[in-house]
């Protein structure tokens, strides 16, 4: 697999030269493979939001560089603008960015800015609406008449409609009820499967990212604390707790079981995996 995104020695300092000057991220380096699902976790103020705004060129690095397919997004103005469309960014509470008269027009805002033809825009909007779980019957309604959850789906469709190679989600499930969360995450998973897009997802919920992500990036105070497969990351529960993070509930349980002497894998992080191990433990390997 080839690296789609490469972040090289990225640093960003806010309010340079004022008393409020502070480093949000310091010397970050990592790569994201094509088609990968990367979970980004970190405590509030760990630099997650600052980092993701660098990926599509909204923020310019104070130091270091961001590369898309091996090419710096800051090479020239055109490349930077192209990066906006190649890397889609879904902000936290994206429903607050809706502004058009109809849902259709709002989803079409991105593709329109790309300068696409009418027919192509129409196609993309319909496709994006399906992926994001926006019912086609609401396309002619005002986005302000929808419920909170629906609004969020419309906003997500607005980014999907640009058909970016990479989509970055910042806390996509914040403020949704459990059923809404699960169904939105399922939409994201299905979208990835259908398009092969690279997905980056910032989340507070360890359970969510553990289930979906191929790899996890743990940020602490603007620096990379750990990066690796969820199974590797969650074995270091102690360190995660030290930096104000948690491990999935299942992992907490299995760490405790291991402490009590049960022959289980402490890096278990999915319910299915946990069930299998428990059944094996109970029935000596017998499983229906």
């Amino acid at each position, binding site marked *: 697999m080839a690296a789609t995104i490469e972040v090289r020695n990225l640093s960003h300092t806010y309010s340079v030269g004022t008393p409020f000057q502070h480093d949000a991220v310091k010397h970050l380096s990592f790569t994201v493979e094509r088609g990968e699902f990367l979970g980004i976790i970190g405590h509030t103020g760990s630099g997650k939001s600052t980092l993701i705004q660098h990926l599509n060129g909204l923020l310019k690095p104070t130091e270091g560089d961001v590369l898309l397919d091996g090419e710096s997004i800051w090479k020239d103005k055109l490349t930077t603008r192209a990066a*906006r469309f190649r890397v*889609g960014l879904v*902000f936290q509470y*994206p429903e*607050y*960015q809706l*502004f058009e008269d109809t849902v259709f027009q709002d989803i079409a805002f991105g593709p329109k*800015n790309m300068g696409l033809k009418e027919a192509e825009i129409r196609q993309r909007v319909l496709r994006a609406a399906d992926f994001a779980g926006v019912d086609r019957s609401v396309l002619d309604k005002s986005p302000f008449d929808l419920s909170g959850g629906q609004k969020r789906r419309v906003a997500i469709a*607005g*980014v999907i409609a640009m058909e970016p190679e990479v989509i970055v989600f910042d806390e996509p499930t914040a403020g949704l009820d459990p059923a809404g969360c699960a169904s939105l995450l399922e939409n994201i998973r299905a979208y990835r499967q259908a398009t092969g897009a690279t997905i980056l997802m910032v989340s507070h919920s360890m359970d969510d990212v553990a289930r979906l992500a191929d790899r996890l990036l743990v940020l602490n105070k603007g620096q990379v604390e750990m990066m690796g497969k969820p199974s590797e990351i969650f074995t270091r529960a102690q360190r995660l707790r030290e930096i104000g993070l948690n491990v999935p509930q299942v992992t907490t349980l299995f760490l405790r079981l291991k402490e009590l002497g049960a022959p289980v894998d402490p890096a278990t992080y999915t319910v299915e995996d946990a069930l299998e191990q428990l059944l094996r433990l109970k029935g000596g390997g017998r499983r229906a």
Partner: protein
Amino acid sequence: MLKDITLGQYFPGDTVVHRLDPRTKLLLVIVYIVALFLCKWYVSYAVALAFLALAVALSRIRLKALFKGLKPLIIIIIFTALLNLFYSEGRVLVEFWIFKITYEGIQNAFFLVLRIMLLVMGTFLLTYTTSPIALTDGLESLLSPLKKIRFPVHELAMMMSIALRFIPTLIEETDKIISAQKARGADFETGNIFRRAKALIPILVPLFVSAFRRADELATAMECRCYHGGKGRTKLKQLHYRGRDVIALLLGALLLAAVIVLRQFAL
């Protein structure tokens, strides 16, 4: 970015000027402004300047910060200076084409520029040394006699406090919306003036929607805490005049008296 704008110009501190009652400071600024407009000649301007210099020295506000406040006014200052320079009648010093510079013109220009600068720096000193909340409290208290003629003083002060409180919030919100629309390829930097104005719609609509939502939520929260206007409402922080306020007000009175007397002698 927008974050770098300093709107709440308050510089926290613990000097005599900071501790003065906000009402005293408001009154002093009014007296100071009146005095400035009564100034006629070098001597009276010198007195006003001395008064300001004393206040600045006591407040320990750096001169750099005060001059920074003058920056946005540079064009107005230059414009006034030029107008006065060229359009005053009197003894002609230089004359070319349709322009003539008179001795009186130079003098008028100098005094006017000095007056504007002293005026702006004086009012900036007020906002630099008084927190916005203290300022609205002071204003409410000073205007309270107007309640007799049913002027909604409390409501006005409350509106001001709420507006001040939400300025940073709205700036942050605007910043977020701009980023979000940029992420969808919105372009605010190119095109002619009409295109740019149109490009603001994706920012303004969400901003208004969110401002109304916030206002609605705030209204509910206030009603939940039984807010029903200013009648019978007490304050956590009562304003009290102290010795230093008396001294400051006396100094203000002295300034006004001095300028009026000097005016009689055309000084």
